[in-house]
């Protein structure tokens, strides 16, 4: 016997209904062919049949594309500020992939570093992640090169592994444990189930064929930071759109705007991207006016600044930037083609 449980796939809708009592449940959803996260509609669990990963990553739930921060009103005595209601609903993300779960762990570092972001952290604190291991990773996936795997359970509260008609359930955190107390649908898993799960994990692991050598990557980047020729060459085909950053599960940059109507206003936070020239535009000049500088920023942020400052690469190998890029700019190719020390030419 094992302490692990399993749930029949047919019971998933029921399970989600049970959890919906307490949580706002998010599941993968197709909106005009675009896979994204949406509030569960209360019945449909067919995503289990088609879901590989979403186009819009689950970070959108915790760091929404647009978010009201507070409203303000000008009165006789200056400004009156009103914060949004703080009692957030508890959110349950069902089926998050290991790469995206890891990405949230990386975002946690940023939003709880020197400045604690109340908006993001409140949602994270109340949120529960139910992971679902990949059985069919994309050819653009490369999580295994980044210390993870398609079935990595490190960053979720509860981990599910596909074992045919059933999903094997592993409790990872206390939150996950508590979650399991709210359902009676789980049965005890057998040794055979576990063996099958191990097998599936291995198969999935081997399906990730894209490889990236990340050893000393931050040092290589540091050495090439001023290698203008190199960056210009790899940036040549970049069109400076926001796809790879907006849809990256670890990119978190945001812009702040005030909207003013009559004497009232509201402050909004919205996604921003270092791919846009406007991102760094200042009154007199723009330190990243050229696109190679912006692309360098993106790559170095993930593979150089993060390892140096947080000891982790801010990329989880989800492959979205490769899959969705209109010009097939490929970060793994870029990093693979980094010149070694001897060849580095410095920017003048």
């Amino acid at each position, binding site marked *: 016997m094992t302490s692990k449980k399993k749930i029949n796939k047919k019971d998933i809708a029921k399970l989600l209904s049970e959890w919906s009592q307490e949580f706002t449940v998010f599941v993968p959803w197709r*909106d005009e062919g675009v896979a*994204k*996260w*949406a509030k569960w509609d209360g019945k449909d669990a067919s995503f289990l049949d088609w879901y590989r990963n979403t186009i*819009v990553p689950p970070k*959108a*739930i915790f760091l*929404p*594309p*647009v*978010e*009201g921060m507070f409203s303000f009103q000008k009165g006789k005595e200056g400004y009156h500020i009103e914060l949004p209601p703080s009692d957030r609903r508890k959110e349950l993300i069902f089926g998050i992939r290991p790469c995206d779960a890891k990405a949230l762990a990386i975002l946690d570092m940023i939003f709880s570093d020197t400045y604690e972001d109340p908006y993001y952290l409140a949602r994270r604190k109340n949120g529960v992640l139910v992971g679902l291991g990949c059985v069919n990773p994309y050819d653009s996936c490369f999580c295994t090169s980044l210390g993870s795997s398609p079935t990595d359970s490190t960053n979720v509260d509860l981990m599910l592994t596909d074992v045919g008609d059933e999903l094997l359930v592993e409790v990872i955190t206390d939150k996950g444990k508590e979650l399991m107390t709210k359902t009676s649908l789980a049965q005890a898993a057998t040794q055979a189930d576990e063996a099958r799960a191990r097998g599936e994990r291995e198969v999935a692991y081997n399906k990730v064929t894209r490889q990236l050598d990340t050893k000393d990557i931050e040092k290589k980047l540091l050495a090439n930071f001023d290698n203008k020729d190199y960056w210009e060459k790899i940036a040549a085909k970049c069109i400076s759109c926001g796809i790879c950053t907006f849809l990256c599960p670890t990119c978190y940059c945001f812009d702040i705007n005030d*909207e003013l*109507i009559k004497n009232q206003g*509201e402050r*909004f936070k919205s996604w921003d991207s270092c791919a846009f020239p406007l991102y760094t535009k200042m009154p007199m000049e723009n330190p990243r006016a050229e696109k190679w500088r912006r692309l360098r920023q993106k790559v170095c942020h993930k593979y150089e600044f993060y390892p140096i400052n947080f000891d982790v690469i801010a990329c989880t190998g989800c492959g979205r930037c490769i899959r969705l890029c209109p010009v097939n700019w490929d970060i793994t190719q870029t990093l693979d083609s980094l010149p070694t020390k001897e060849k580095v030419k410095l920017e003048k």
Partner: protein
Amino acid sequence: MLNYEPKFLVFCCNWCSYAGADLAGVSRLQMPPNFLVIRVMCSSRVRPEWIIKALMSGLDGVVVLGCHPGDCHYQTGNYYARRRMAITKKFLEYMGIESQRVQVSWVSASEGGKFAEVVTKVTKEMKEIGPNRLFTDERRGHGVKTT
């Protein structure tokens, strides 16, 4: 929607249509108060962005008035305006914005009567179609569906 009181802009070129609007006043032609004139030097100055911004901001429509073809104070301005307005108007219609919301007409300095007529008719039409769909209050604080 006949008791709906629309508010719309009328862009008038300085030389013909604004003078025409003045003449309507001098002639004491009575018309509904729902329009507000913005004077520009020539109808060719009107950017489609103005129209879109006005509609987005909650105004019910935009009327662009210029000199009759061949009468432009700057010779050819209204010809360019005509092209620009044609594609703007037709495209907004294609998007599903009522054709009445964007209107173009030629009003000369001596056509005070025509100015009054255009403004009166447009007011009536905008009352008929009711408030502008492009502007809704959900705009404020409205996020994307993912969340």
